[in-house]
């Protein structure tokens, strides 16, 4: 009958459309990974496949520190990928360059912690999904501290006392791996967050306007000098040829007591000894009120030029709603259940946490922070004076804006 014919045709057309929708869409994803996130691709692929089997992710994985920026630049010319995965600070940079598409008010943002949504929001528009956070501070060997009656230092004076005691015991106070220049850049920013940006959030703007300079700022000199404090109390002869894994292993073995680092070291600690007992405290600042730094880490962003906006939303939905994926990624990247969590919870309860973005959004990494770190390295090695290193930072004023 005519009606059944029409119904049949309509059904066929509906099935066709459904079928078309079910054809695999390939979404390009550029992921700037750090040492800790290697392997999240598999977890995310599984999460997406479980909820939206028609979507396939084509991954391009690069090193965050050295390559992500360069790749994004390249793709600005030849076509941005659909999803960019970086750190929280990249969100500010890329959104200001109009490379991202806002995802304000999307339903899947309800799965994300409100604080995380807030830190990904600029000018009322949300630009990314922050997946987890890293903590940065001084990781310490709890056994050494306990066995020797050492208390966690809160001021520079207390820190000096702890260093003196450790030296007298023949234990190297700080584990370092300055072979990785990025580690110098990282700890310097940690110092800056607690000595500069907590007091004056617009310090960087004043710097760029020429009202402040590294050469004359006592705070800048202080944070550079902390590097020297650490260098003088670490394995000086070896640190510039020691890799991260060796430094982390030595902390575990008790050859050193403290390491200014971040959650990325935890995986290494537990690889060497799964029962290693460690904690974390903020590096003491001049005022004695330093806070533990947390840094929004794996951040998913949608590019402004993507043709698969819906597919990207689906991907974000899949990863934020999948509890197993979340746990798996936590286990992989931050080793969620780890001894330092006790210290972190204690500090969080007292409101002693500060967002790393307070610093990272002020001074860009590539071209400024990393170049300053090289000058600090040269100064520590004796090929530059402190003054030259500070002046070099000033000379990069023009390129310091993220």
């Amino acid at each position: 009958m005519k009606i059944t014919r029409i119904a049949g045709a309509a059904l066929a057309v509906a099935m066709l459309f459904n079928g078309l929708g079910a054809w695999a869409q390939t979404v390009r994803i550029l992921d700037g990974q750090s040492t800790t996130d290697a392997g999240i691709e598999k977890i995310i692929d599984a999460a997406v496949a479980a909820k939206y089997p028609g979507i396939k992710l084509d991954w391009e994985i690069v090193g965050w520190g050295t390559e992500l920026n360069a790749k994004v630049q390249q793709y600005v010319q030849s076509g941005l990928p659909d999803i960019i995965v970086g750190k929280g600070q990249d969100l500010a940079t890329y959104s200001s360059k109009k490379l991202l598409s806002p995802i304000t008010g999307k339903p899947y943002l309800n799965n994300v912690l409100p604080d995380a949504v807030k830190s990904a929001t600029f000018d009322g528009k949300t630009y990314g999904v922050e997946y987890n956070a890293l903590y940065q501070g001084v990781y310490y060997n709890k056994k050494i501290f306990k066995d020797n009656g050492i208390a966690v230092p809160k001021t520079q004076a207390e820190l000096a006392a702890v260093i003196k005691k450790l030296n007298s015991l023949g234990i190297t106070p700080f584990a370092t791996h300055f072979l990785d220049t990025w580690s110098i850049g990282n700890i310097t920013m940690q110092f800056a967050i607690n000595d500069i940006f907590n007091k004056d959030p617009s310090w960087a703007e004043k710097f760029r306007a020429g009202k402040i300079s590294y050469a004359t700022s006592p705070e800048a000199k202080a944070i550079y000098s902390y590097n020297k404090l650490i260098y003088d109390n670490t394995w000086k002869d070896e640190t510039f040829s020691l890799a991260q894994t060796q430094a982390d292993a030595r902390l575990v073995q008790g050859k050193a007591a403290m390491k200014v680092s971040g959650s990325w070291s935890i995986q290494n600690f537990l690889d060497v000894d799964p029962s290693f007992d460690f904690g974390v405290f903020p590096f003491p600042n001049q005022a004695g009120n330093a806070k533990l730094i947390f840094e929004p880490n794996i951040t998913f962003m949608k590019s402004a030029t993507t043709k698969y906006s819906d597919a990207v939303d689906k991907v974000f939905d899949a990863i934020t709603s999948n509890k197993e994926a979340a746990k798996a990624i936590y286990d992989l990247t931050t080793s969620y259940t780890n001894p330092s969590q006790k210290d972190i919870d204690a500090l969080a309860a007292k409101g002693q946490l500060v967002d790393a973005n307070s610093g990272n959004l002020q001074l860009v990494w590539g071209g400024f922070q990393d170049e300053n770190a090289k000058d600090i390295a040269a100064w520590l090695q004796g090929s530059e004076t402190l003054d030259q290193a500070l002046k070099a930072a000033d000379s990069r004023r023009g390129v310091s804006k993220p």
Partner: protein
Amino acid sequence: MPKPSFQTVRTAQFLTLIVPGLLLFTVGLILPMFLGLYYSFTSWDGYTKDFPFIGFDNFVRIVQDPHTLDAWGFTIEFTLWNTIIQNVLALFFAVILDTGLKAKTFYRTVLFLPCLVAPIVAGFVWQHMYIDVLPGFGSLLGTKINFGLFGKADTVLGGLLIVNNWQFIGYWMLIYLAALQSIPAELYESAVVDGAGSWVQFVKITLPMLAPAFTICIVGITAGSLRVYDLLVSATGGGPGRASTSIIFHIYNTALNAQQYGYGSALSVSLIVVLLIIALVQLGYLKKKEIQL
């Protein structure tokens, strides 16, 4: 119209054999060269679509920028030392292997094997040699030598020279070996008859006959050393600080990490000019020497 001559047709056909190569070469190398020249007069950052013209500012900056001068300094030092050490050692081992030593093929293979490895891999392996293996070896022997050559600005060049020579001595040695073996034995025999000792033989007969091999090796080692980049990426990352940043590493850093494509292009142009000058000078000098000898 008269029919095109056989010669013309032939020449035209020969031309078709050249055209593909010509096209690819022009688009792939020559076109970028001129584009690079153009960008070097701008302050392009690689992101945006505008190319602000700034004249010769970039070039002035090159001469004033201490980092650029340091990068050149490192590259030239690396090249000079490499050229001397690799040549001398390659010749040294070639002479030893040429004396009819037993197991010559084994030694030849062992010395040659390292050049099969990509420089980027060699850098990483040697980083661990200096950090782990050699200190472990040293502790077995009971010495306290600090093997961390990549860890200090004064020793990083030495450390890198060791890696580079380990990689390529075998390669140049083969060239010297082939050249040595092509020297007719009669020359030596008549020298012995004349009462010449082995050292005199070496200087008066061997060295002059090696002249073409010298040219190849010196030009080859120089060219390769000036371009060093892969090795540095994995071995030292340009560090400690900037102590082992070569000129190409510096260009990569400036353009792609610090987003200054204009300046990076200017650096590339200056590099090309220097390379051309060095190549022409070398070829001219060495060819003259060859003819003399």
